């Protein structure tokens, strides 16, 4: 897939938080084949995070810094500016949190921050809800990719609203769409890809699995399977059985 004129081979993007150790993180990234990892600067970035950032850079993949933990436009913009300094990239995964229990995006602040950052030359990856109108506003603000949630961050509940995700896909057929957050199982990731999403971004499902490396490999295969299935134009579900071998001597149309 192509985002902001960058060609990515893998459609799986990984978070870097909550792993048992940086070594396990590195092995999981390798097993996942991910070419992009996202890293939080808000908490780790208060200063003195160089040790961890060096480990992230040493992963040898593209870094998508994020503004996790920011609740206001100002915080998010400042964090993004710091991220550009630290990682030398215009990419920023923009998060503005509106509710602490669900970590639901504060979409009004999100659009404002996206507009400010786009004007400053950032390439913004907005973490948003599946709301169609907000999605349109984010594109107007300068975003060239959208990252709607599947379910609240870390909840592992899968795609809470497949209808909304499907309609987002249908409305913006040419915009790269990434399901970000809520994925708990490979089947969730496959489902997102079957809907025609361009990629999946996840963290907790891998980091907090008993064996993160194995789960990373499982997610990679699910994402690939879901994408292949989408490209293969799957059959439509139907109510009646359709025998896969011809049945002779019966009327074709039932009464």
């Amino acid at each position: 897939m192509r985002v902001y004129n960058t060609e990515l081979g893998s459609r799986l993007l990984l978070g870097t938080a909550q792993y048992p150790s940086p070594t396990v993180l590195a092995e999981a990234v390798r097993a996942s084949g991910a070419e992009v990892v996202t890293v939080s600067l808000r908490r780790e970035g208060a200063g003195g995070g160089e040790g961890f950032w060096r480990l992230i850079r040493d992963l040898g993949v593209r870094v998508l810094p994020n503004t996790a933990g920011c609740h206001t436009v100002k915080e998010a913009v400042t964090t993004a500016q710091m991220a550009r300094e630290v990682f030398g990239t215009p990419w920023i995964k923009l998060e503005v949190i509106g509710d602490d229990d669900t970590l639901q995006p504060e979409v009004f602040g999100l659009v404002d921050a996206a507009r400010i950052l786009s004007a400053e030359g950032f390439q913004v990856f907005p973490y948003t809800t599946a709301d169609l109108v907000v999605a349109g506003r984010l594109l107007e603000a300068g975003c060239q990719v959208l990252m709607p949630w599947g379910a609240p961050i870390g909840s592992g509940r899968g795609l809470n609203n497949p209808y909304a995700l499907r309609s987002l896909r249908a409305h913006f057929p040419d915009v790269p769409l990434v399901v970000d957050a809520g994925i708990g199982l490979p089947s969730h990731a496959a489902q997102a890809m079957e809907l025609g999403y361009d990629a999946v971004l996840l963290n907790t499902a891998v980091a907090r699995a008993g064996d993160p490396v194995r789960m990373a490999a499982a997610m990679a295969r699910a994402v690939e399977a879901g994408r292949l299935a989408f490209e293969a134009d799957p059959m439509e579900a139907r109510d009646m059985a359709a025998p896969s071998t011809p049945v002779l001597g019966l009327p074709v149309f039932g009464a």
Partner: protein
Amino acid sequence: MPFIAAGRSPRVLVLGAGVTGLVAATVLTGRGAAVTVRFRPEAASRASHFAGGMLAPWCEAADASALVAERGAAAIGWWREHFPGTCRAGSLVLAPPRDQAELHRFARRTTAHETLDTEGVAALEPDLAGRFRQGLFFAGEAHLDPRAALAALAADLPARGVVLREGEADEAEQEGFDHVLDCRGHAAAPDWPSLRGVRGEMLVLRCPEVALRRPVRLLHPRIPLYVVPRGEGVFMVGATMVESSDRRAVTARAAMELLNAAYALHPAFAEAEILEAGSNIRPALPDNLPQLRAEGRVLRLNGMYRHGFLLSPWLAQRAAALVLDGADPEGGTA
């Protein structure tokens, strides 16, 4: 390995008087080495000054390598032998009602525990009666007051023939020893490039209304925290884990999270006195496990991360074997 005349005790210089250095000095003198310890006088400069003091190898296995439980289990015996204040009353793991899934995960990922219901929790900790529907009890685990334990080890060193010297040791001084044990924690980062800092923040509270006999861990998907009784109504609440070696004071966010955890455990903590808010830097290596590294006469013991009290006896015994037998029982020679 330096030449040591037959019959002469090896002379060892230990750099650092945190838990790694003091345990190493104790173990080495126990095996007949002549030890000098170089230390910084400020107790607050040491990460172990802010430790929880939980000797909880089986709980730690939930998120750490199996090696931590395997090598850490023996630490309980070591501390009981060297510090009489070591208390073996087990540890209790609880989760608020809406985070029960975390308790199931914890139970799956650990061994040596029994599942408790409301009555079981109340029987162990009467003050928590009726507050939690389910808990996990790790009966074999222990805890200690790290500051008292470190003070006891340090007080015992002169009688073991150890020379204690304040301040740094220069090159010339180091030349006079057969071995130098670098136990400086995060301060040694310039000499060990993959060593990073993981910031931890903690509070000390006084709350005479609550009595707990053992450490209680409160699980939460984002901020797992623990409360450790220090006796006489005093509790340590810890600890945050931030990928940073920033040494500024405790942040408001950390204080809120720690206080929230204490309050979730028992509402009486709302009236607690905040005696102290402390922070320091855990030294960690990429796999979050400690390492013993031999570089000529210098042995580096570092990367204790969350497990200084749990794993320093193991690391010290390996270092002592290298110094006195010329071989590390876990492989490697000096």
